[in-house]
C-alpha cells in the first residue's frame, strides 16, 4: 500500500506544481517594476495602473464581454432546445444529422471552424450583402455555434438523469405539454443551464482562433489584442492583465465551489 501511494502522491504534487507554478510566476512578475519582464526590478503596482489607462485594452475587453454575454445567452437558449429535443422529443426526421451536428463542434479543430465560418460570411456577403462588415455580429454567431454544443451536452446529461415521472405526474394532473416544459422541466434543469451559460461565456472570452478568422478590421477582442502583444514576447502589462484575470476567475470558481459544497452539505 505505502509504496504505491508514495509514487501516486509524488506525481500528484508534481502535477499540481506543473499546473500552478506558471500561473504563480505570472502573478509574481506582474508586480515587477522593471520594464524588462524577466529581470526583477523591485515591487511595484504600476503596470496595473497602466492597464486601466490603456484604452485599447479596455475597448477590447468591453467588446469581448459584450460578445461573451450575447453569445452565451443565445447558446444557452439554442443549446437547451437542442438538449430537450435529443432527450425528450423521441425520434424525428433528420435526427441523426441533428445529433451529429450538435456534437461535432465539440471535437472540431478551431482552425477549421473559424475558416469555414469566415468563408460562409464572405460568400453570404457576396450573395445577399450581409454581413456588410465583420465584427461583433459575426464573432457572436461563431461563438454561439460552437458553445451551444457544450450547453446541449450539459443539458442533455442533466435531462437524462432526471426522473421523467415528474413530467408524467404533471401531465397526469392535467398540464399541457408546453406548460410542463415551463413549469417542470426548465426549473429542474436550471442549474445545468446556468452551468452551460458560464461555460459558454468562458469559451467565448477564451477564444482567439475563431475570432481571428471571423472578425474584421478594427474589431479586436481581448484575446486578439493580447495575442498581438505577446507574439513579440513577455510584456509587463500583460502580466498584470493575466494576474487580474487569474485572480478574478479563481475567486469566482472557489466561491461557486464553496456555495455548492455548503448547499450539498445542508441537503
Amino acid at each position: 500500500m505505502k509504496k504505491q501511494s508514495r509514487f501516486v502522491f509524488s506525481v500528484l504534487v508534481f502535477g499540481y506544481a506543473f499546473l500552478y507554478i506558471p500561473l504563480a510566476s505570472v502573478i509574481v512578475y506582474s508586480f515587477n517594476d522593471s520594464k524588462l519582464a524577466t529581470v526583477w526590478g523591485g515591487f511595484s503596482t504600476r503596470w496595473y495602473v497602466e492597464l486601466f489607462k490603456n484604452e485599447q485594452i479596455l475597448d477590447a475587453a468591453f467588446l469581448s464581454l459584450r460578445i461573451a454575454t450575447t453569445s452565451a445567452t443565445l447558446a444557452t437558449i439554442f443549446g437547451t432546445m437542442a438538449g430537450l429535443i435529443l432527450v425528450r422529443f423521441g425520434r424525428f426526421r433528420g435526427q441523426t444529422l441533428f445529433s451529429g451536428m450538435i456534437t461535432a463542434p465539440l471535437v472540431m479543430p478551431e482552425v477549421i471552424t473559424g475558416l469555414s465560418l469566415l468563408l460562409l460570411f464572405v460568400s453570404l456577403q457576396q450573395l445577399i450583402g450581409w454581413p456588410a462588415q465583420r465584427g461583433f455580429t459575426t464573432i457572436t454567431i461563431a461563438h454561439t455555434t460552437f458553445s451551444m454544443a457544450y450547453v446541449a451536452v450539459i443539458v442533455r446529461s442533466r435531462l437524462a438523469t432526471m426522473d421523467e415521472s415528474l413530467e408524467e405526474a404533471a401531465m397526469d394532473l392535467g398540464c399541457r405539454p408546453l406548460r410542463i416544459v415551463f413549469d417542470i422541466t426548465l426549473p429542474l434543469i436550471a442549474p445545468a443551464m446556468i452551468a452551460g451559460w458560464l461555460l459558454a461565456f468562458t469559451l467565448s472570452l477564451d477564444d482567439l482562433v475563431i475570432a481571428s478568422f471571423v472578425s474584421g478590421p478594427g474589431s479586436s477582442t481581448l484575446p486578439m489584442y493580447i495575442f498581438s502583444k505577446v507574439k513579440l514576447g513577455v510584456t509587463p502589462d500583460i502580466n498584470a492583465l493575466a494576474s487580474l484575470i487569474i485572480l478574478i476567475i479563481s475567486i469566482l470558481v472557489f466561491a461557486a465551489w464553496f456555495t455548492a459544497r455548503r448547499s450539498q452539505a445542508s441537503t
Partner: protein
Amino acid sequence: MALKKRQGALWQRITIAVPYLWLFVFFLLPFGIILKISLADPVIAQPPFTPFFDADGGLSITIDNFLFLLTDKLYAVTYIKSIFMAATAMVLCLALGFPMAYGIARANPTTRSLLLLLIVLPFWISFLLRVYAWMGLLNNYGVINNFLMWVGFIDQPIQMMYTDFAIFIGLTYTYLPFMILPLYATLERMDLDLVDAAQDLGASRTIAFWDITWPLARPGVIAGCLLVFIPAMGEYVIPYLLGGPDTLLIGRVLFDEFFVNRDWPLASSVAIMLLLILVVPIVFLQRSQARDAEATS
C-alpha cells in the same frame, strides 16, 4: 417520454426548427463551402478564388490543390510532424494524468472535490494566458533558466523557448485536464473490491493494477487520449508562441496559408486534409462515448 406524445404540436416543431436551422446554416453549410473552395483555383481578386461555375455555367473544379498537398514534400512533413507532436503530447498527458487521476479518485471525498476543482480551475482561466505564462518561464532569461543558473547547475541559459520541447510542455499543460477528467470518471466508478479480490487471489499490487485497474480504465484512457490528440492536431497558438519559426504544424500552416499567402483554396484543402486525418479518431471518440453512456445508464 412525457413530451413526445403530441409530436405534431406547433411549439415542438419550432423548438426543433430553430437550433436545427442555426446549425445547418452556421455549421453544415460552411463545410460545404470549404469543400467547394478547396476545389477552386486561387486568383488575385476579392474573394481570391475562382467561382464554382464558370461563365458558361459549366462546373469549374480542380483537384490541383489536393495534388499539390500530396506531392509537395513540405506538407507531408508537416502532417507527419503534427501527428508526431500530438501523439507525444498525448503520451505525456497520459503518463502524468493517469497517476494524478488515480490519486484523485482514491482520495477522501473532501480532498477529492478540492483536487478536482484545482484540475478544472486552469480551464476557466484564459487558455492564451496560460500559454503565455510558459513564455515567462521558458525564456532564455526566464524563471527556469534564472533559477538553474542561480543554483549553479548551468552557467549559460538553456535554449528552451522556440523548441519542440516548449511545444510539448505547452500542449501537455493545456490539455492535461482533458486527460484527467475522463480518466478520473472511470477510475472513480471502479469497484475497489475488484483490486482487493485480485490481491486476495494471489496478485501483487503491481500485477493487480495491470490485470484489473488498467483494463477497466481503458474507456477513460481512450477518451482522454482522443480528447488530447484531436485538438492538439489543429493547434495554432501553442506552436506559434512557444515553437520555433520553422516548426510547421497543420494548424499553423493553415493559418499562414490563409492570412499570409492569402491562398484560400489551398487553406481550404489543408482544412479538408486535417479533417480527413481526424475523422477516424473523432468517430472512434464518439463511439466510445456512446458506449460509455450506454454502460452507465
